């Protein structure tokens, strides 16, 4: 059924359709409506699972640690400072191999205070062992929540799904809400092989010595390595069930492009218009939109890259002392590849600044005209 939904509500509906059993959450702008809708659906009896109104994000994720270990399907949503406050638990949950699914509404980190979209919150959690998905539309948010449960529960690793603060979280778009029966057919109930069970008592998270700890981490690395293919596979399965397919990287008119923009999140939507305009003006322009960031989709990137297609990477994030984070990771992933393309970095839109069609076209021309620097990123601002 088609509905007009804000991104935050699309996330909640995705979780409820996934028959989530325990939600623990704490309010934070701009993610608050995700949990307000859970509360509303609880009051109306449309959501029948547990809802814990915890006193902090740290406790939200700790509660999901308990609930997921007990064998329940779990969900939460947060943003920015809240995600940073969860940091300790993020490592814990992935190390414990719990398939928790969380929505993070991308918002800049303080200081100074800022409420608007910026990817530095989620990207600074890149080493916590969570899968990371970046969405470009509200439809994609809803669909990715459902797919994430399937991927996470197969891998026993948690997933974080990002949508842009306000740009998607508060903007209403038409969304096709799948039928519950179809979702049930796509996503079987969570059935972990180990859980808190008084008839079969065990200890979870006990002290390990260096050798078993190393092997546990190695196993996690191996499972992360097979996650990219699994994301592609589940995306194809989703297409067969619902008619909308998703891969690790979306390619748009890049097959014969001499320069392709590389974007993620809602900028990926704006970029399509920029590419169309550049094409109309006679330029060979393309787009690679990253949906998956962890594990880093190296296979898809190599498949879609060509020696004669330069990449203009747009980062709404920055690692102080280095570069935009997508840019540095793309360079690292391509290093040593024969005929690797040239990669140029652009930092733009930090703290929610507009990344307009005009700005994106300007970046494209910077690379095309060889005025960009392949080592240091160019900081680009909307002229208005």
């Amino acid at each position, binding site marked *: 059924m088609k509905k007009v939904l804000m991104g935050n509500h699309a996330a909640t509906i995705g979780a409820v359709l996934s028959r989530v*059993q*325990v939600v*623990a959450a704490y309010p934070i702008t701009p993610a608050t409506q995700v949990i307000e809708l859970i509360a509303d659906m609880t009051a109306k009896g449309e959501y029948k*699972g*547990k809802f*814990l*109104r*915890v*006193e*902090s994000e*740290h*406790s*939200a994720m*700790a*509660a*999901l*640690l*308990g*609930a*997921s*270990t*007990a*064998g*329940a399907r*779990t969900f939460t949503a947060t943003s920015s400072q809240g995600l940073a406050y969860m940091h*300790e*638990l993020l490592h*814990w949950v992935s190390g414990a191999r719990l398939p928790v699914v969380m929505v993070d509404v991308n918002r800049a980190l303080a200081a100074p205070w800022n409420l608007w979209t910026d990817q530095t919150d989620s990207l600074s959690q890149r080493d916590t062992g969570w899968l990371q998905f970046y969405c470009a539309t509200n439809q994609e948010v809803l669909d990715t929540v459902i797919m994430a449960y399937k991927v996470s529960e197969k891998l026993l690793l948690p997933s974080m799904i990002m949508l842009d603060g306000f740009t998607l979280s508060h903007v209403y778009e038409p969304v096709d809400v799948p039928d519950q029966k179809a979702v049930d057919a796509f996503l079987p109930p969570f059935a972990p092989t180990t859980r*808190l*069970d*008084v008839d079969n*008592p*065990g*200890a*979870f*998270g*006990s*002290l*390990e*010595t260096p050798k*078993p700890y190393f092997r546990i981490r190695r196993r996690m690395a191996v499972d992360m390595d097979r996650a990219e293919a699994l994301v592609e596979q589940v995306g194809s399965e989703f297409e067969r069930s619902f008619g909308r397919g998703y891969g690790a990287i979306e390619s748009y008119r890049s097959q014969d492009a001499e320069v392709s923009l590389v974007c993620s999140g809602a900028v990926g939507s704006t970029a399509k218009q920029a590419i169309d305009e550049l094409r109309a003006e006679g330029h060979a322009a393309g787009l690679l939109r990253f949906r998956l960031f962890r594990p880093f989709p190296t296979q898809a990137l190599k498949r879609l890259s060509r020696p004669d297609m330069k990449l203009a990477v747009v980062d709404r994030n920055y690692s102080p002392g280095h570069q935009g984070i997508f840019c540095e990771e793309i360079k690292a992933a391509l290093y040593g590849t024969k005929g690797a393309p040239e990669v140029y970095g652009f930092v733009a839109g930090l703290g929610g600044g507009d990344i307009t069609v005009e700005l994106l076209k300007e970046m494209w021309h910077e690379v095309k005209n060889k005025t960009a620097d392949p080592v240091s990123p160019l900081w680009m601002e909307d002229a208005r």
Partner: protein
Amino acid sequence: MKASIAVDELMTSGHQACQGCGATLTMRYALKGLGKQTVVCLPACCWTVLSGAAPRCSIGVPLLHAPFASAAAAASGAKAGLSARGDDKTTVMAWAGDGGTYDIGIQALSGAADRNEDIIYCCYDNEAYMNTGIQRSGGTPFGAWTMTTPGKEGSPRPKKDLDAIMEAHSIPYIATATPAYPEDMVRKFAKAKSIKGFRFIHVLSPCPPGWKSDTDDTVKLSRLAVQTGMFALYEIENGKFKLNMNVAKRKPVGEYLKPQGRFRGLTPEATSVIQADVDTRWTGYAKRQANGA
């Protein structure tokens, strides 16, 4: 002869506690009161280590380790997860030391108590960060030496009144216990198990390395704490206060303080301050007992 507490053991030998550890006695009695259908949730504390490194475990019930600040939250989630799967019977108990309760864990504890989560929270209080090697916590009493209050004067601040903080949350059950009185302790855990909502049990748990006391004095000190009035045994059920042991003639506090090396630096004046504090607290207990509230 009929045993005064359950004979079944859910805690095994082979744990990794120090000699004379009060927290092993406490866990043993707690599990006797709670029984097999129990899940224990542990933040960082002595019990993280003494339950045993993987693959060993010295208790016969499921054990969930959780970060330091999160005992009450992780236990809330475990209860919600079990309940979501249709199991409303299993008791979930958060089991934390004084550092994880008085200090770093108090936010999650207050949140869970405020929500009246259907869990038991037990603080086994050995009055300092003992697992990291004796540093002051909010549970450290006035005058006690620790590695972070190393002067002769010891801790400059009194022990935080955690029970009063918990009472302010309007929870159905609060109890205090200490291992010198096993029947009292087992009864309180069994009673807590039968109550729905947030239950808080505060156990004074002697620690020979931290208290600088003889390892065979654990039960004696636990008993002296009660007999001197330093630690009162009571229950607060739905706001109703009940002294379990009305110590009419309290021994002088010095009898409890002297055998402990951590109080070696106490001057007679400081001891009088402690005695006066105990006397004031007992005047309050007597009033509450008389009022039945």
